[in-house]
């Protein structure tokens, strides 16, 4: 590219004859550079587009060479038309075809929208080319009608190249460096042609316009030699076809072509091509309208699809709500079942416990009394199991509701410990209590007593013979703190979180075959929660367990 730029500078320094020759040399160098680039960067079979560029430009070079021959050897301009025109004109279709091939390799859409875009661009370009570039030849003097036709063929070819350029501009895929260079080179060429077309009579060899053509040669060769040209034909699949800003601008520009053309002609006091502009404007308007109609339809169908999707989502939502409702109903039925079972179990227990109580009162034989006591104890156990199950079932479908009254926890703790003493003695467990005065709290005494009984009897249950259980109650930092610690089997740290879950049984409890339902701590936590407190556990396997309960102790 640097060498090319240098060559262009050199060109303008040369005398006219030298210029003509050097111009051909630059062109020929560009053609061979494109062929070399294609061969180097592309595999066999994918080089056709660039070969077309090369031959298209070669047509121009040959034309230039014939011109140069006339100027240098014969010292005059070639006749009009000449053989040179044949080469020039033959080159254009090849260039256009090359661009079309590149676009096709890029995966340019052949959708209705893309075709309409092309038609819009073509119509706009054709209108401008005809009014400003082709039609003027109708009002010039030519030796023969054939010469006039040949002259008018140039704007037609430029129109084709312009359409190709516009397509490159809105083409799909990522923009590689090579792509941009190609865009630039085609752009330079078209601009040079158009400027020439406007000043066809004023043009002289060595004019600055030559610089544009030469630059186009150089850039085109640069594009071919640029390694990224191999990837020029790698479409970016992620980009969905859509109405990009560029495409919108092109459509808008096309729509403005007719009125602007009219305006320019009027301001320049040109002959106004009313008929052509009217027809062109109508065609452009119609096609853009078609394009927009397609767009609206696409948006509408997207909207329909979205509505359908939303309807589906709503239906799914309703189904989910229905299933949720059913689950809740199922849960309620289950709880009702548990409640009813609890009632059915309590009824026979009433007779068992009641008659055993009666017998115990009447029986004098200690041996028989011992057996009756066993029945009584187990009936009690069964009853507390049934109560726990009912409690847990009710927790399932609602928060625990308390009948609050002022409670002195100290008294409750003392009562609970006293009632647990016989059990502790039976298990050879030392039961110590250390209570200090605590503020009166609001709560339900029966539930709090249940909580205390649970914790104390748990501690005794999990403590082996000759162990000890300590119950402490104190006020600390505005909270009432209850601790129940034992020297029992302890609990794994990993199980602490689960300990308060329904039906959870610690591994150590299972290993030591300590009976339980896994409901006691679940219920205890529910009672603590309902009183706005917290319950936690500390300790390790073999080192005992401490349960800590904290209630807000009121402001003091």
């Amino acid at each position, binding site marked *: 590219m640097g060498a090319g730029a240098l060559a262009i500078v050199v060109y303008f320094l040369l005398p006219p004859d030298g210029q003509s020759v050097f111009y051909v040399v630059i062109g020929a160098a560009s053609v061979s550079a494109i062929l070399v680039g294609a061969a180097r960067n592309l595999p066999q079979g994918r080089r056709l587009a660039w070969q077309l560029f090369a031959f298209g430009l070669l047509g121009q070079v040959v034309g230039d060479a014939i011109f140069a021959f006339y100027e240098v050897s014969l010292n005059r301009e070639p006749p009009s038309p000449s053989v040179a025109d044949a080469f020039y004109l033959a080159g254009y279709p090849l260039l256009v075809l090359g661009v079309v091939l590149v676009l096709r390799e890029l995966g340019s859409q052949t959708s209705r929208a893309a075709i309409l875009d092309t038609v819009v661009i073509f119509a706009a370009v054709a209108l401008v080319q005809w009014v400003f570039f082709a039609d003027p030849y109708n009002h010039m003097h030519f030796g023969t009608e054939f010469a006039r036709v040949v002259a008018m063929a140039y704007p037609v070819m430029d129109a084709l190249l312009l359409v190709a350029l516009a397509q490159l501009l809105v083409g799909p895929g990522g923009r590689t460096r090579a792509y941009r260079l190609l865009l630039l080179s085609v752009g330079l060429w078209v601009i040079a042609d158009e400027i020439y077309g406007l000043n066809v009579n004023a043009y002289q060899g060595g004019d600055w316009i030559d610089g544009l053509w030469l630059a186009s040669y150089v850039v085109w060769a640069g594009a071919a030699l640029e390694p990224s040209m191999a990837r020029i034909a790698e479409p970016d699949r992620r980009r969905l076809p859509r109405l990009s800003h560029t495409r919108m601008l092109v459509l808008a520009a096309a729509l403005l072509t007719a009125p602007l053309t009219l305006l320019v002609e009027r301001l320049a006091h040109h002959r106004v091509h009313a008929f052509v502009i009217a027809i062109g404007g109508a065609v452009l308007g119609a096609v853009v309208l078609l394009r927009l109609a397609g767009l609206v339809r696409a948006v509408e169908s997207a909207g329909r699809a979205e509505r359908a999707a939303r309807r589906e989502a709503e239906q799914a939502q309703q189904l989910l709500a229905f299933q949720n409702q059913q689950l809740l109903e199922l849960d309620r039925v289950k709880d009702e079942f548990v409640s009813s079972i*609890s009632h059915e179990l*309590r*009824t026979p227990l009433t007779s*068992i416990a009641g*008659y055993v109580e*009666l017998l115990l009162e009447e029986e004098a034989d200690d041996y028989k009394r011992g057996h009756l006591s066993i029945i009584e104890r187990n009936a009690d156990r069964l009853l507390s199991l049934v109560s726990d199950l009912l409690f847990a079932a009710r927790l399932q479908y609602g928060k625990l509701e308390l009948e609050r009254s002022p409670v002195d926890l100290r008294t409750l703790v003392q009562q609970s410990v006293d009632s647990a003493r016989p059990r502790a003695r039976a298990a050879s467990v030392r039961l110590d209590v250390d209570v200090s005065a605590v503020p009166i709290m609001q709560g339900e005494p029966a539930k709090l007593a249940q909580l205390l009984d649970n914790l104390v009897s748990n501690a005794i249950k999990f403590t082996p013979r000759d162990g000890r259980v300590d119950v402490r109650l104190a006020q600390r930092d505005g909270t009432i703190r209850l601790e129940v610690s034992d020297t029992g089997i302890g609990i794994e740290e990993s199980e602490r979180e689960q300990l308060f879950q329904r039906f959870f049984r610690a591994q150590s409890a299972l290993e030591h075959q300590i009976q339980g339902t896994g409901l006691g701590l679940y219920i205890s936590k529910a009672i603590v929660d309902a009183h706005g407190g917290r319950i936690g556990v500390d300790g390790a396997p073999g080192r005992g367990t401490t349960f800590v309960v904290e209630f807000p102790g009121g402001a003091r």
Partner: protein
Amino acid sequence: MNNGPLVLCADDDEDILSLVSLRLQRAGFDVATASDGEAAVAIARELRPAVAVLDVMMPKRTGYEVLSELRSDEALREMKVILLSARVQESDVARGLEAGADAYLAKPFKAHELVTKVQELLGGA
């Protein structure tokens, strides 16, 4: 026999009915028994017991229904009513007390609880 105050016991479970009757007789009360709600109402109207100990889940008429029937009868205004039930939820207890029961005892019950409650309601008589 005992010539104490008359207590009506109603329960569809024969074993429990016998147990309740026995406990109350031993405590010195006269006892009349019914094994369904309708019989309970009939006996209550006929014998006008001082206290009625009613099961809740009974055939023909539930304890609640018997209770409201008794409460709507001017002549039985003075009768004390204890509901004795294996339905032990707070809502059950609340419903019984709202319907006008003087006490609600849960099954299984301890003998002294029952006797104490009846005596209490009779004002220590």
